């Protein structure tokens, strides 16, 4: 009744990830280079699962000091007060406005955590060869790709707060060690999203040979 969908790989064609040209490589083991744009051709992103796991793990490790260490230190008349990311959210809530507090909370705490959970879930389901809710998992992957950059928000907040408030000896604000860990979480999860190959979601149950072990 239903004809099974044919993927490019099943048809012996490689899709160039750079320019989108389909080509038929002379050898399946060595796809070679795209005749149009000259980039190396790959059936699937190389070592996708291991690389993504490594980056997700590194990001998860950085996520802890990013939240525990101070991101800002405010010096007024000799005494310095330190603030973590959550401290900044609480500050905005009590003195600023709750919508901004909510935006910072979502962008700096929930989005990075959500990215780590979502990528781990995608990796685990691909490794177990799940064939359920492929469309939803692909959508989840695209969401991770799109919203990932917004978790950079607090790094920018800290940068411009520090840059502007340099009125020594009256008052000055310095960055804390938490900022660097936080920037590392954002960069690592963004690279992790780009090393994950969403086509692996669809390969399960169809063609085991393309799954990277």
């Amino acid at each position: 009744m239903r004809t099974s969908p044919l993927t490019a790989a099943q048809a012996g064609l490689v899709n160039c990830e750079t320019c989108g040209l389909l080509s038929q490589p002379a050898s399946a083991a060595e796809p070679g280079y795209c005749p149009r744009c000259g980039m190396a051709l790959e059936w699937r992103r190389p070592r996708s699962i291991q690389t993504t796991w490594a980056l997700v793990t590194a990001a998860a490790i950085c996520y802890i000091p990013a939240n525990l260490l101070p991101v800002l230190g405010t010096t007024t008349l000799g005494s310095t007060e330190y603030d973590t990311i959550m401290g900044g959210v609480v500050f905005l809530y009590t003195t600023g406005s709750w919508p901004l507090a909510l935006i910072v909370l979502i962008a700096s705490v929930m989005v990075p955590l959500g990215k780590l959970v979502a990528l781990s879930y995608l990796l685990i389901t691909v490794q177990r060869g799940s064939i359920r809710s492929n469309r939803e998992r692909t959508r989840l992957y695209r969401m991770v790709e799109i919203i990932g950059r917004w978790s950079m928000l607090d790094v920018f907040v800290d940068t411009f707060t520090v840059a502007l408030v340099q009125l020594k000896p009256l008052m000055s604000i310095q960055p804390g060690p938490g900022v660097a860990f936080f920037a590392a979480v954002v960069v690592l999860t963004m690279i992790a999203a780009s090393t994950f190959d969403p086509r692996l979601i669809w390969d399960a149950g169809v063609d085991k040979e393309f799954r990277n072990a």
Partner: protein
Amino acid sequence: MTDDPIAPEGDPAARACPDCDLLQVIPELPPGGKARCARCGRMLATRSSAPSDLPLALTLTALLVLIVANTMPLMGLSVAGRQAITTIGGGAYQMWLQGQEVTAVTVAFCALIAPAGYILFMLIVLLAAKRPPAPQWVGDMLRWADAMQPWAMVDVMMLGILVALVKIADLARVEPDIGMYAVGILILLFPAISVSLNPEEIWARLEWADGESPLPAPETSTPEPPSSGSTP
């Protein structure tokens, strides 16, 4: 099943979905039309209804606005008769001075280098692809522009600045400056460039890496001779 016409290598209408690898043939799209993957819903092709020079005009405008955004102060702060201003680069530089080199480099890349790189590479691509066949290196430029795009975070930076302003408003009087308005315009220009541009059209005008000349466009009757100087 096997009489499915999808397979021809080199058929410009045949495409594999980048997200699920399903083979499909993209029909001729009307202006403003979109084609999505039948299996996973990924956008596969769009046909812009905008005039072909729009991406170039938008990119040129973005270049001018970018220069203003990076050279003019973003905002000024005054407290007890003392004043301070900052630029985008000044933010990253202050982070470096405070011993946060990793953060400084990340901020400089996302707020300065990636947006500038994206605009410059796009500008070169759009100018060079005006008369096909365009040389191979134009493809590299397009690839680099593509790589820069997710890292160009002017929009995230703008929201970050606004949050910083609210935080500081408690301590001192802050006023937005020209740079801030320029960043606001850039936020609109970046997505406009990528929406008005069809990368497939650019790829079709490039000389192939294996030395082939691009396929002649339907309206040109005489095929262009391959330009010399390419490596096989």
